[in-house]
């Protein structure tokens, strides 16, 4: 890949804008509320776009394209039943408690609703997970930059050794993210997430249009793929009749209820953008506003994967032509991994033998993560290629920034102010927040470098996150909607849910996987058709165990007096009044409209 001056200028301009926003906001960061909560003064539209963009990190943009190539349109369930209902639920039912309680973070809400130990448990696990997530984003971005040879030309021109590209990519992204968060705090992160939203659309929409044009439109795409790839719901009654290998209960309960709600309703990474809104009405609208573009994002991030697998596989070709009696041979050389792959998705080649790697059933392993990046290289000429790469890098950095701002807030408010140094001045906590940003970035860099040396560190971390995240939704659901739930119950439920998730993983294994990181490390009691099915059912087990243990322990322990639960529990909290708003301006009306469109999209692509 050869980048021209225009491509470089486009990337450079993005970095200038990102840093410019940070510098412009620095003088408005006067209190810790400005720095950590964006002054709770932002309009719903800005927070709404940031809400969706905070989730548009590396895993989303590259991962959804990869899943699209691997599983087809069924991947859209992550949106249709995973995200949209959960975003509606958090906007309509949960935001009044998050925003109305005046909690500055999700762990702080847990302290108000339950007790100090539940908060400490959540704050510690969340803080560790955010810096590791940020490190994974950094590592993935540096690997992608290496794979696409983005900086190769620059390094050659400067006479630097190409081995330094990985370190250079990590340091560059770390410095940029550090500077703009250090200067402008959460506001800076939110504004950059809004910028990133526009870049993703500008960078990916022409990719989808060109891909569809090349393959012969929607009809051509359908003709080039197996039937099951082009349906969301076909064959979901049984695990063996759909590409994802998951049946309807695992899908609806595991993805739709536990994992989707667990992420969108409890993860402070996204909730913090809604809590930065100027008032309760805006805070409730934030997830609903975000749900509108979210419904259509499968067309931008999943479709490139489907197109990549559906297009013809390139092969080395030689064209002979005769010009004025002179015979020319034009040879287009395609690398071995591309020729051995499927469509534009390359095969994984063993670096030692130079042969394609095979799975347990002898089929070639495909490098699905390269589906979307290869589409960019296949269709984008100069200028737009720079824009596409900028959109990719923006998504990686935005993912990092969201994690780092969530980390600095939770570290400062929930750990430092609560357990290390109480009663200091506001200026002191703001300084701690800034230095926590530096610390978070340094830990992220360390994680990214650790990922080089430990092959399975990314998979291991994702697995640990799933153990911690899966049961969380039960805690919040019971906390907000059952006044009898107690702090002891919540704490015991969280520990039991996480332990249950670990045991489930240790006792089950997907078919065709080897024991170890994929499961079965205690003994194999059950085989799942796919790793996705194992994930979804693991989440269902973790949620159920947490729910049952929380209820049982709560019934045997003393609850908070009802007077202390006003504003924290649904039945004890006055409902927000929207009498002053016309019916179609009320959050509930918007929620119903979104739900109807989501159902229509599901029926259309069923």
């Amino acid at each position: 890949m050869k980048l021209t001056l225009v491509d470089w200028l486009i990337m450079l301009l993005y970095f200038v804008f990102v840093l410019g926003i940070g510098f412009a906001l620095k003088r408005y960061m006067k209190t810790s509320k400005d720095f950590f909560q964006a002054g709770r003064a932002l309009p719903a539209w800005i927070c709404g776009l940031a809400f969706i963009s905070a989730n548009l990190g590396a895993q989303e943009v590259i991962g959804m394209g990869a899943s699209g190539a691997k599983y087809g349109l069924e991947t859209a369930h992550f949106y249709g039943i995973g995200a949209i209902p959960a975003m509606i639920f958090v906007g309509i039912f949960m935001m009044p408690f998050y925003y109305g309680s005046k909690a500055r973070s999700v762990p702080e809400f847990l302290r108000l609703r339950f007790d100090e130990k539940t908060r400490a448990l959540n704050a510690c696990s969340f803080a560790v997970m955010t810096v590791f997530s940020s490190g994974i984003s950094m590592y993935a971005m540096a690997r992608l930059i290496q794979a696409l040879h983005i900086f190769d030309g620059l390094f050659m021109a400067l006479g630097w050794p190409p081995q330094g590209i990985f370190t250079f990519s990590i340091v560059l992204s770390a410095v940029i993210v550090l500077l703009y968060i250090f200067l402008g705090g959460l506001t800076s992160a939110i504004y950059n997430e809004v910028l990133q939203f526009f870049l993703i659309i500008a960078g990916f929409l022409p990719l989808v249009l060109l891909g569809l044009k090349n393959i012969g439109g929607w009809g051509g795409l359908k003709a080039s793929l197996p039937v099951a790839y082009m349906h969301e719901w076909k064959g979901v009654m049984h695990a063996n009749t759909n590409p994802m290998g998951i049946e309807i209960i695992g899908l609806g309960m595991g993805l739709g209820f536990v994992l989707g709600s667990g992420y969108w309703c409890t993860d402070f990474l996204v909730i913090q953008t809604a809590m930065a809104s100027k008032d309760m009405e805006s805070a409730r609208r934030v997830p609903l506003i975000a749900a509108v573009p979210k419904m259509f994002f499968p067309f931008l991030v999943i479709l490139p994967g489907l197109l990549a697998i559906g297009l013809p596989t390139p092969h080395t070709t030689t064209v002979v032509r005769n010009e004025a009696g002179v015979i020319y041979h034009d040879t287009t050389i395609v690398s071995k991994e591309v020729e051995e792959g499927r469509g534009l998705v390359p095969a994984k080649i063993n670096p030692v033998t130079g042969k394609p790697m095979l799975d347990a059933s002898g089929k070639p392993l495909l490098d699905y993560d390269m589906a979307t990046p290869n589409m960019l290289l296949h269709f984008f000429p100069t200028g737009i290629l720079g824009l596409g790469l900028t959109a990719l890098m923006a998504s990686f950095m935005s993912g990092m920034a969201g994690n780092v701002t969530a980390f600095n807030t939770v570290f400062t408010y929930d750990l430092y102010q609560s357990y290390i140094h109480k009663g200091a001045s506001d200026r002191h906590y703001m300084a701690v927040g800034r230095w926590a940003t530096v610390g978070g970035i340094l830990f992220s860099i360390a994680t990214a470098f650790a990922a080089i040396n430990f092959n399975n560190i990314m998979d291991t971390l994702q697995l640990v996150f799933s153990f911690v995240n899966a049961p969380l939704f039960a805690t919040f659901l019971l906390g907000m909607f059952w006044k009898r739930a107690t702090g002891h119950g919540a704490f015991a439920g969280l520990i039991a849910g996480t332990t249950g998730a670990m045991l489930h993983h240790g006792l089950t294994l997907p078919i065709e996987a080897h024991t170890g990181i994929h499961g079965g490390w205690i003994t194999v009691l059950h085989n799942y058709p796919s790793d996705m099915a194992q994930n979804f059912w693991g989440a269902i087990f973790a949620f159920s165990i947490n729910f049952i243990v929380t209820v049982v322990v709560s019934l045997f322990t003393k609850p908070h007096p009802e007077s202390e639960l006003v504003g924290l529990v649904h039945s004890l909290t006055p409902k927000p009044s929207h009498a002053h708003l016309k019916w179609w301006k009320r959050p509930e009306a918007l929620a119903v409209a979104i739900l109807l469109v989501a159902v229509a999209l599901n029926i259309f692509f069923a």
Partner: protein
Amino acid sequence: MHGSGIPIWFFIGVLLTVYGVMIFGYGIVEAVTGNYPPLVQLTNLHTPIWWGGILGLIGLFYIVKFRPKSSSK
């Protein structure tokens, strides 16, 4: 923008306009010289020209709609 009086939408408009102009301009150069990058498909559709133009127009719309108002004393 956060009390400065300059909305973030204005900055987005500026960025999109500059990107649009750059991509459109380079698309024109490519079309005139016929010098397309090798291995890239569908260059005959001149994507940089129409997509650069669309980005530029959307950017201009945002600049005009969200331009900072001059403060009256």
